[in-house]
């Protein structure tokens, strides 16, 4: 225990206390650049593009699965990406408590991989919806939402044709009981999702999936800055985690 902690702290010092981000790139990802720039612009931490054939993510503290149409959305959205070589490393990272955010297609991949419960259906309107959406922050216990206030309304854009989140009754009861619903749509539900769900997390709160795009809402020039705090939240969560380790190790 003592050894692993000092090794970890040593590695941390070596990197100058910087948090390392990975943006996973699948064939057909198209929001990878937005995610990369959002990390750079909001929190200025080091970030790499990681190709889907990689098998080691041990050098990263936070892994972002970007939006897009991985493998052309063939069969089902995320169904083929879920078996990409990098996914074994991602499952391992999730188990280790590393911070993982799946946005849009990234959320679909997390569902297909079983890292989050439920599945996606075609939007009830059958239309691809691309516009700003009002979201309510339902929980601040996740590592990506700790800088928000519960009940706060955010303006974050959506852009999807298959964001109609579905889970059965029993799963919904469990999501509510374990405080796993992270965002809900306010006002109009753009896709027909169960219980107006826009984003959920796993039980531990280190894996979050959402259909709206916070990386597209990090500057007033883009129409909203409401997505910024997802990035500041996760940086703070990482600092707290390592700060605590340093104190208890002394």
């Amino acid at each position, binding site marked *: 225990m003592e050894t692993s902690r000092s090794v970890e702290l040593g590695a941390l010092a070596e990197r100058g206390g910087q948090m390392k981000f990975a943006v996973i790139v699948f064939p057909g990802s198209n929001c990878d650049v937005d995610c990369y720039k959002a990390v750079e612009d909001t929190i200025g931490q080091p970030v790499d593009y990681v190709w889907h054939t990689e098998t080691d993510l041990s050098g990263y503290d936070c892994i972002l699965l970007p939006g897009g149409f991985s493998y052309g959305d063939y*069969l*089902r959205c995320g*169904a*083929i990406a879920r*078996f990409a070589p990098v996914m074994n490393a991602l499952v391992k990272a999730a188990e280790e408590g590393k911070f993982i955010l799946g946005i849009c297609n990234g959320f679909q991949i997390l*569902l*297909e991989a079983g890292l989050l419960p*439920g*599945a996606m*259906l*075609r*939007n*009830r*309107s*059958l239309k691809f919806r691309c516009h700003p959406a009002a979201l309510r922050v339902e929980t601040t216990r996740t590592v990506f939402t700790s800088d928000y206030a519960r009940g706060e309304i955010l303006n974050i854009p959506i852009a999807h044709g298959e964001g*109609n989140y*579905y*889970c*059965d009754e029993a799963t919904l009861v469990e999501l509510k009981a374990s405080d796993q619903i992270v965002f809900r749509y306010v006002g109009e539900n753009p896709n*027909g999702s169960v219980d107006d769900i826009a984003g959920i997390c796993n039980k531990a709160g280190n894996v979050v999936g959402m259909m709206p795009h916070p990386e597209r809402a990090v500057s007033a020039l883009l129409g909203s800055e409401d997505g910024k705090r997802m990035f500041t939240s996760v940086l703070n969560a990482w600092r707290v985690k390592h700060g605590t380790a340093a104190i208890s190790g002394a």
Partner: protein
Amino acid sequence: MKATVYVTIRQNVLDPQGKAVRDALGTLGFGEVKDVRIGKYMELELATEDRAEAEARIREMCEKLLANPVIEDYRFELA
């Protein structure tokens, strides 16, 4: 051996495409159509002649990849 796999949205899950097609059929005067379910049809060529083995393998393929058991049902035929 050839396998034919059918994947459809489960009965208790709303199929938005099926509903849109049913409504369109109604508009066209086919009012007798009460429900439409849209699914996927897949043909697989298998390099085996062992029927029991093929069945077990196809079932595994369906569970793992071809269908998502959260929202979809599957059935298959071997010929």
